[in-house]
């Protein structure tokens, strides 16, 4: 028996939520929408996974209690941009082992400005003790330096990263759920206010409030997607490298071998776009630029939409709702494979890929995972 993704949903992302909105209410909203999408009732749910930066002091069990769910499988994920695929990894195995029949996975946050500052300054002990005191003011400085290394390695200028931001914004124009939808020009990108050289405001994800949810099931009553292969590799290089390769580089050959597919077969892709450079790093790690020519990847495949990447607009245009960021791309690819993407639908898309990345351990992210998905019905 193969586990299936049978429902997805997104609680609408907003920049300025009203006072009645809390982290719990956005998670509950996404959960309700996902159940409706899967054609299920709360009594059908026997597994729950939650990823949130701000649900504390509550955990998944508390949300299970608030939702009246009796669950045989339960998990909390604290792994940020890798949390969705991490939870998917465990939920799929649980369903296939018979531990649960319908697992609900939710991810999201309401981060007011103060909560956001506390989150980035106290992200982990090394950030609290050795980065926040400098002050770095969050991860942008760290990824600004990574982007400089990427520019030097691949002989790229700011224009190339601008083309990624512009490309994603053009997809967002057809996504009613994206917070930023107006077309972005390369000129506007290049003259935008700088955050940390060479990153401008359009290189950094806008913080929003919202949540995403998926349902993993033992059987489907409607349209469903199956997992062809799923791999993870965390702390790949012990933070001793330059951050320009992730664990994906090591596990990509296993992913393709196990899935029986290759990069050329992928019809729709979501990579974790905390920054344009990291989106490009993941695409390269996974084998989408096998000649190593990133400029050509951008010009000939991404800008042309020959390879549809981050078709929701990605986090850079749709927004990053805290821990929902990792699940946003998964919801988007599943939506595309279920032919439910409306104006931005990739016609006939049957096979897609989603990668997760995150948890800046000091100089770059330590978590990386990836899943290849296929439409079933």
């Amino acid at each position, binding site marked *: 028996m193969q586990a299936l993704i049978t429902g997805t949903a997104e609680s609408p992302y907003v920049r300025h939520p009203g006072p009645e909105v809390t982290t719990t209410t956005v998670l509950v909203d996404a959960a309700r929408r996902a159940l409706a999408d899967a054609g299920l009732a709360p009594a059908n749910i026997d597994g729950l996974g939650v990823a949130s930066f701000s649900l504390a002091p509550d955990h998944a069990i508390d949300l299970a209690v608030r939702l009246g769910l009796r669950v045989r499988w339960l998990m909390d994920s604290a792994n940020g941009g890798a949390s969705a695929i991490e939870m998917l990894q465990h939920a799929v195995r649980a369903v296939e082992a018979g531990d649960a029949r319908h697992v609900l996975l939710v991810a999201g946050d309401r981060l007011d400005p103060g909560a956001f500052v506390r989150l980035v300054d106290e992200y982990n002990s090394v950030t609290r003790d050795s980065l926040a005191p400098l*002050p770095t003011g969050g991860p942008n400085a760290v990824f600004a*330096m990574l982007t400089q290394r990427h520019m030097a390695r691949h002989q790229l200028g700011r224009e190339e990263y601008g083309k990624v931001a512009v490309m994603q914004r053009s997809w967002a124009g057809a996504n009613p759920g994206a917070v930023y939808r107006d077309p972005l020009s390369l000129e506007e990108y290049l003259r935008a206010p700088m955050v940390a050289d060479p990153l401008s405001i359009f290189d950094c994800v806008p913080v929003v409030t919202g949540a995403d949810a998926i349902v993993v099931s033992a059987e489907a009553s409607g349209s469903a997607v199956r997992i062809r292969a799923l791999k993870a590799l965390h702390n790949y290089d*012990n933070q001793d490298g330059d951050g320009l390769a992730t664990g994906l580089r090591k596990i990509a050959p296993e992913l393709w071998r196990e899935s029986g597919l290759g990069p050329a077969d992928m019809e729709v892709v979501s990579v974790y776009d905390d920054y344009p450079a990291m989106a490009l790093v993941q695409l390269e790690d996974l084998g989408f630029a096998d000649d190593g020519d990133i400029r050509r990847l951008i010009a000939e495949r991404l800008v042309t939409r020959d390879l549809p990447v981050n078709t929701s607009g990605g986090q850079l245009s749709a927004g990053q709702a805290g821990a929902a960021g990792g699940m946003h791309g998964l919801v988007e690819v599943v939506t595309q494979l279920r032919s439910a993407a409306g104006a931005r639908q990739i016609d006939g898309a049957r096979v897609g890929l989603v990668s997760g990345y995150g948890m800046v351990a000091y100089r770059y992210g330590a978590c990386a995972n990836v899943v290849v998905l296929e439409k079933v019905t």
Partner: protein
Amino acid sequence: MRGITISGCEKCDWRGFPHRYWCPACGSFETRDVVVDTGVVEQATEVRRAAGRAGDSPVTIGSVRTDGGAQIIARLEGAAAGDSVVLHTEEGAFVARAIQRAT
């Protein structure tokens, strides 16, 4: 205070930051604090905007490869990419100041 404390293996020449309990290179359980005070700036960025810090002056942050190989992140004061620097710890923060300009 001149110098920063990084992590080193008792058994092999691995050096890094932050502190490791077990050596990532050889698996030894014996690691120790190592003080280093010089390095080279590999990247530098001026942080002009940061959440919760509107109105504060820009800060220059650098990625420094310390002598011995450990890569750290420091606040740069009078130093730029390519410079050899002296490293200090001031109120818990790693600070790097240029010894000489890169030619």
